[in-house]
């Protein structure tokens, strides 16, 4: 009789331990920011800023001027220029943009258009001012529908918020998109 009770205790302990191990967040997700989701076209509400996805352009090539030098970048895939609006900033900040593709892969804003006028890497967003900005991604065409624009503060985002903005319907790719101020 005592044997059965001991067995039950051990089994219950093992089940409890298994449940705890199964439900504990993994090492990777512990370091992720809290996601804030929005409906298409709506603003998502973050800790440092709010943002709204305005629209986007797809292109096979992008053209821009860097310090007066015209530059054209081509791609084996597509360029996506995503326009968004930032408002309700609580502290002066920069913003890092990532495209969470339809397959779940993360595409960071491309560094190949660095130096383009109005580029995100040089932009600061200030409290009380509503500003528009854009981010340029390089990604396969099938990652765009069903993908999301993810905006965070740059650097470490633990305990911060990440704004997930779903893609609105975008027009088909054009041969060349120009990035102008």
């Amino acid at each position: 009789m005592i044997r059965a009770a001991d067995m039950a205790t051990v089994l219950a302990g093992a089940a409890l331990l298994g449940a705890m191990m199964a439900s504990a967040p993994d090492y990777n997700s512990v370091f992720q920011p809290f996601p804030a989701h929005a409906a298409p076209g709506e603003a998502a509400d973050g800790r440092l800023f709010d943002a709204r996805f305005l629209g986007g352009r797809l292109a096979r090539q992008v053209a821009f001027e860097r310090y007066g030098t015209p530059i054209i970048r081509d791609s084996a895939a597509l360029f996506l220029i995503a326009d968004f609006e930032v408002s309700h900033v609580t502290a002066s900040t920069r913003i890092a943009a990532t495209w969470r593709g339809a397959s779940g892969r993360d595409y960071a804003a491309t560094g190949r258009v660095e130096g383009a006028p109005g580029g995100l890497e040089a932009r600061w967003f200030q409290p009380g001012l509503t500003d528009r900005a854009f981010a340029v991604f390089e990604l396969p065409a099938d990652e765009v529908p069903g993908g999301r624009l993810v905006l965070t503060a740059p650097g470490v985002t633990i305990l911060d918020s990440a704004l997930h903005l779903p893609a609105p319907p975008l027009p088909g790719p054009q041969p060349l998109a120009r990035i102008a101020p």
Partner: protein
Amino acid sequence: MRRIGWLALTALFFALTAGIGAKTAILDLRGEREWDLTDTGPAGGALEGVALRVELTRAATAPQRPDRALLLVRLALDGPPAARAAWVDCRVTLRHGQDRLWRPLETANTDAAIRTIAPDGQNMGRCNPQPFDAPADAGPILSDQVFLVPVEALDGLRLHVSAQGTRPRALALPIAAQLVAIP
């Protein structure tokens, strides 16, 4: 009774472990946040042996963007070198209410913006109370910082000044600036 003793010992060691682990985090937090504010008048005040004086405030708008203003704040820090040594990582921020915080602009155009707004056309550089090229006892150390703020927020702005060695203590003072238009 013996069991209580063991439990107390366990609790003590647990608290010690947590405390030692938390010490760095608490020190980091104290060096990062400003929660002990010393309110002073708009002219300036003193903190940790260093005197702060607001030399100049000037706000400028451009006709293309009349909703926003560039606010230039020139500060003078003065004190013995030993006191100034605690002022590394000097931080100057603007606040409006509880939930708006502006940091100084640090972009490629900031130097040109400061030189345009400053009446003497000079940029005194960032707030750093230990410039390496300054002589040992040459009076106050000037610095220029420029903020991009909405024009409607120009009334009711407060300036917070702190440094690594003073935080969580910080100087807080109201800032008023007359608005000029730059072509």
